[in-house]
């Protein structure tokens, strides 16, 4: 008879069989047997103790986004599990593969309001791709295998496995088989060549084609195929927030970012192109603005892996269901070489307008304090676009997206769909562990960092060399901007007092510096980047700077504004 091992040990062996080497987590009563088993595997598995479960899950997301591998996190039952929910919801909407393991009260106590019991399976149901509660030790291997298959294939997403404590102790034989097939789940639908041919014909006919790069390009590793397509057919391209870093900034067909704070040209030209080619994206309202006046003049090709996204927001004339890489590979030979010089020049003309009205001011202000744009651009220049940039949510996020540039893909980590403040600092921890040889810089606001600032403790304990840049405007800047523009400057609870971030970082043993004038910026960024180990740089920026261009909520993308409207 085969050897019997505990459920906890079975979980460890299952995780090892899936190639797991990094786990973010926080122990507690109902997951203690699992942590006890982890103790025997601490040479093979690097467990990072965060300071809060939300920190653990955002770190797992950062790890997943820069590696393409699933992020793993552990939490105990009750509050431990519920603290994961924000990160799970974030990962669901941003298609990030995660496997979350939660401890649960012993199975006889389920449903009795036992100590630290929460119905995490019920609560996480709307925000997980799949979840399951294990109440029999024999289920562990099969469920873990299914979880990894579901999390990482098709449109990726978070899964949660809840394991009752008695199951963690129970003994059973163990055998692990990777899951490659589930009868009820088709991650990759076969590509319909008729759809591809129709899309190719539309591209070949188009005079003013415009391609939108979504997160799906990165997820399916289709960057080269995408470049080949736009170069062959000479198609200008712009990216969604999560499609950032697919194209390097110097690529002649890279027209910038789409959406609410995207670039001027991509928004204006959305409503002037004759063909919109959307690849691996879902027409979020931050991209489309008012849907009823979005690209009405254009035919629309929607290449998308998730059948439920096709026609969900925008009715596609040429839907193509499938993985971006596979579809682009089939599409490429059918697309004719073309030139669209005049059309591309129209984008360039837009860029000149934007440069004069927005970019110049953002990057070259001549008074005392730095602008957010200056700081981001300085980091970009000094890292030669090779750094991984992680952001929080708000003004710094939009500025970081606009003024960074990336030499390689999978380098921009941000909370897109959910817009989770507090994401930046812990996500940077995960990104750094996922790519230990790269420089990881996180831009955070004075508001966002205080939501998860306890993770400075994790950074200090593990000596994770992330570079933290706080763009401090003493406000919840994006909300303040909306109050200024749309609520008659009624600054309702957006002024925020912060601790002395430098002293705080120092108290954790993290080196830190504060600058208050733009002439200190160059040296400070150099010092930060040269520093071995973590470093926090606080930059005082203008209190009431705004992010432009802006498509006001509910407006058409063609009504993008470049400056504050006259009152």
């Amino acid at each position: 008879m085969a050897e019997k091992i505990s459920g906890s040990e079975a979980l460890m062996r299952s995780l090892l069989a899936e190639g797991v080497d990094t786990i973010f987590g926080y122990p507690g009563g109902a997951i203690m047997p699992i942590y006890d088993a982890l103790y025997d595997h601490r040479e093979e598995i690097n467990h990072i103790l965060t300071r809060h479960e939300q920190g653990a899950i955002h770190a797992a997301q950062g790890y997943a986004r820069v590696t393409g591998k699933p992020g793993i996190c552990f939490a105990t039952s009750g509050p431990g599990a519920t603290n994961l929910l924000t990160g799970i919801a974030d990962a669901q909407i941003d298609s990030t593969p995660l496997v979350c393991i939660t401890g649960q009260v012993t199975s006889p106590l389920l449903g009795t309001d036992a100590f630290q019991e929460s119905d995490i399976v019920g609560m996480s149901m709307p925000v997980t791709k799949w979840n399951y509660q294990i109440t029999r030790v024999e289920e562990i291997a099969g469920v873990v295998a299914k979880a990894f298959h579901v999390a990482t294939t098709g449109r990726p997403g978070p899964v949660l496995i809840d394991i009752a404590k008695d199951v963690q102790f129970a003994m059973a034989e163990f055998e692990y088989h990777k899951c490659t097939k589930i009868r009820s789940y088709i991650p990759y639908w076969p590509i319909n060549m008729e759809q591809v041919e129709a899309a190719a014909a539309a591209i070949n006919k188009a005079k003013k084609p415009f391609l939108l790069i979504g997160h799906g390009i990165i997820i399916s590793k289709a960057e080269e195929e995408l470049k080949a397509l736009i170069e062959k057919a000479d198609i200008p391209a712009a990216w969604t927030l999560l499609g950032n870093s697919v194209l390097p900034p110097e690529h002649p067909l890279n027209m910038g970012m789409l959406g609410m704070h995207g670039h001027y040209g991509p928004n204006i030209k959305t409503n002037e192109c004759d063909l919109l080619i959307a690849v691996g994206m879902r027409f979020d309202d931050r991209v489309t603005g008012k849907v009823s006046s979005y690209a009405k003049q254009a035919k629309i090709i929607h290449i998308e892996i998730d059948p439920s996204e096709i026609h969900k927001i925008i009715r596609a004339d040429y839907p193509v269901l499938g993985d971006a890489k596979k579809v682009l590979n089939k599409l490429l030979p059918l697309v004719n070489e073309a030139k669209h010089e005049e059309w591309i020049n129209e984008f360039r003309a837009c860029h000149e307008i934007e440069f004069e009205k927005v970019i110049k001011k953002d990057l070259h202000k001549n008074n005392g304090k730095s602008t957010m744009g200056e700081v981001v651009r300085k980091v970009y220049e000094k890292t030669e676009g090779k750094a991984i940039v992680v952001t929080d949510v708000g003004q710094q996020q939009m500025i970081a997206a606009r003024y960074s540039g990336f030499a390689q893909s999978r380098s921009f980590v941000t909370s897109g769909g959910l817009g989770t403040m507090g994401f930046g600092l812990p996500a940077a921890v995960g990104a750094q562990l996922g790519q230990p040889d790269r420089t990881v810089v996180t831009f955070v606001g004075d508001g966002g960092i205080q939501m998860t600032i306890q993770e400075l403790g994790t950074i200090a304990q593990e000596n994770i060399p992330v570079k933290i840049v706080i763009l401090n405007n003493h406000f919840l800047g994006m909300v303040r901007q909306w109050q200024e523009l749309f609520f008659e400057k009624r600054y309702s609870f957006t002024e925020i007092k912060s601790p002395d971030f430098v002293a705080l970082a120092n108290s954790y043993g993290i080196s830190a510096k504060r600058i208050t004038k733009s002439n200190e910026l160059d040296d400070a960024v150099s010092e930060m980047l040269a520093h071995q180990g973590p470093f926090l740089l606080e930059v005082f920026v203008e209190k009431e700077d705004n992010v432009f261009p802006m498509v006001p909520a509910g407006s058409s993308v063609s009504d993008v504004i470049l400056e504050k409207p006259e009152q």
Partner: protein
Amino acid sequence: MKKEYNIMVYSENQIGLLNRITIIFTRRKVNIESLTVSESAIKGVSKFTIVVEETEELVQKIVKQIEKQVDVLKAFYHTNEELICQEVALYKVSTEDLVDSDKIENLIRKYNARILEVTREFTVIEKTGHKEETQEFFEALNQFRVLQFIRSGKIAITRLTTERLSEFLRERDRILSATD
């Protein structure tokens, strides 16, 4: 235009899946008019019949979001015309009222209902049919005071000769094998 649609869902028999499916309706604030779940002709496969009053466009979106659930095999939607539907209703009346005159007896004959059980106190009557029919019978019977009334969810089968799911499962096997 809103009208009545019947959403048929075939799924693995998994705890919690009903919750996953109903969440899709509640998120969009769509009311479920009736819901029936039972094992289908294929062993281990559950079949949900969900009735909603909605626009076809929204029903299409809901069906795709249901199908996206990992443990769902397939979801379809049908108009009433495409289906053969049935519901069952139970009515409790006082036995005294029943024996007092032949009026209730005549209603039972007229509406093709039947008596399930008679006790000294009450009598339980059953009627199958479409909702309008069971409702009409209720109204007629209620002149004599219906003590209790219950109607089942709608069950339905398509006018097709085979279960669409069998066909679909074969297709699914082909796709899953091809993508190995």
